[in-house]
């Protein structure tokens, strides 16, 4: 794991009321890398992902301890502007969730709510974002069409374009391809591979092969603990821990 770290989590504990969902997790991610979080359901991987844009804050009775920094800044510091944080840390969800608006307006949305209304700038940004999300060629003649008219795979790429429009540094992806067919999945994976040139990506996936294909580093979570975190090559060819080996070879979990 070379390069400078953009994300650092130290001794993170997270409780849902009495239940401890994350146990003393420490890990850091380098800039322009893809980190995959894997592990069986309920292991804490999605909870950990949501720490970085403070999505867990919305849950009743949640308590978070530890030090979590993005570009050196404590993102749980008092008075932190959460909207600013979420601009910097974009998110893509399992199910594509476009707004009931046109393709163009979906991508422009983030700019408009941030008070940007310079027409040329918005148009340029929409085009650039759709190109980055590998969707432009398929939709450029139908930008006014409803986003709902797109296929599931296209909708997901639209959501990625929407996240890119506000120029984040980090993109969180929570099983971004699990609701898609194999061809759309391959497109999303290819996209992730290309996006890491500009962004740092953390992806939660249930699909181990996907973690292998798209990520540079892989973290294996089990029952709220970080069992192993290493280069994906290492994890998938010769993991340090037996539990990791049992999980990735399908022997448990």
């Amino acid at each position, binding site marked *: 794991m070379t390069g400078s770290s953009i994300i650092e989590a130290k001794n993170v504990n997270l409780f849902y009321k009495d239940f401890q969902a994350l146990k003393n997790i420490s890990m850091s991610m380098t800039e322009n890398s893809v980190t995959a979080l894997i592990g069986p359901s309920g292991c804490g991987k999605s909870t950990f992902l949501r720490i970085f844009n403070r999505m867990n804050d919305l849950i009743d009775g949640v308590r978070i301890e530890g030090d979590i920094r993005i570009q050196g800044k404590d993102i749980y510091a008092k008075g932190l502007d959460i909207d600013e944080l979420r601009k910097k840390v974009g998110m893509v969800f399992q199910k594509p969730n476009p707004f009931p608006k046109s393709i163009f307006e979906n991508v422009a949305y983030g700019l408009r709510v941030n008070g940007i209304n310079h027409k040329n700038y918005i148009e340029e940004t929409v085009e650039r974002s759709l190109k980055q999300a590998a969707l432009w060629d398929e939709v450029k003649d139908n930008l006014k069409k409803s986003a709902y008219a797109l296929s599931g795979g296209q909708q997901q790429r639209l959501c990625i374009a929407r996240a890119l429009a506000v120029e984040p540094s980090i993109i969180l992806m929570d099983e971004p391809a699990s609701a898609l067919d194999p061809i759309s999945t391959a497109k999303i994976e*290819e996209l992730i*591979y290309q996006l890491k040139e500009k962004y740092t990506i953390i992806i939660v996936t249930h699909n181990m092969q996907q973690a*292998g*294909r*798209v990520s540079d580093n892989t973290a294996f979570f089990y029952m709220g603990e970080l069992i192993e975190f290493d280069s994906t*090559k290492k994890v*998938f060819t010769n993991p340090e821990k037996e539990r990791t080996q049992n999980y990735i070879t399908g022997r448990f979990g």
Partner: protein
Amino acid sequence: MNHLDAELKMLRLDMLEMFSLVISQLEKGRQALTTFDKDLAREIIMTEKRVNSFELKLDRDCENIFALFQPVAVDLRFVLATLKINSNLERIGDIAEGIAKFVLDIRLSPEPKLLEATRLIEMFDTSISMIKDVKLALETEDTALARRVFQKDDLLDEINGIANQTVGDFIRATPDRINQSLNILSMIRKLERVGDQAKNISEEIIFYIEAKVLKHRSKEEKK
């Protein structure tokens, strides 16, 4: 180009580089013998370490591709073929090193009459050209060229087949050159093996491109 394609392209380039390295080792072996250049022989032995580490690198790259990308169909055959071609190339590297050691071992410069009678240089040239052919066959995905390598091997077999007789005759006539003669006989055996490795590589190239298994088939069946 997608991620797997990029990895496969890198693997192919590395394998071609391994080919070049091994071909150069054999060519240097030929030169070290004909010019009786012991420094060059030592250089071959030094460079053999590079061949070995290259083999390990290619093995590791294949392992990573299997683990991370689960290649299928033509991609799977390519990675499987690479693994096998890689070990064949490494053995050819060993053979070049063995030849270099013989050159170091010989006290007097090789007797031209012996070289001529055993057709050793012809063997060198044929085996080197076979490896060059299979390299080109892989680069251009030309299975017809890969198949022609099977025919070239006949010459190596022929020379190898009469080597005992030729070397025996030479030893009887020149008993003071017995060590050198035996070394030359070993080189002939080694170069015959290079031909076999080239044939194995050809089979792997055909397996990769045409999905046909030619192993353990007769020469007629391989056409």
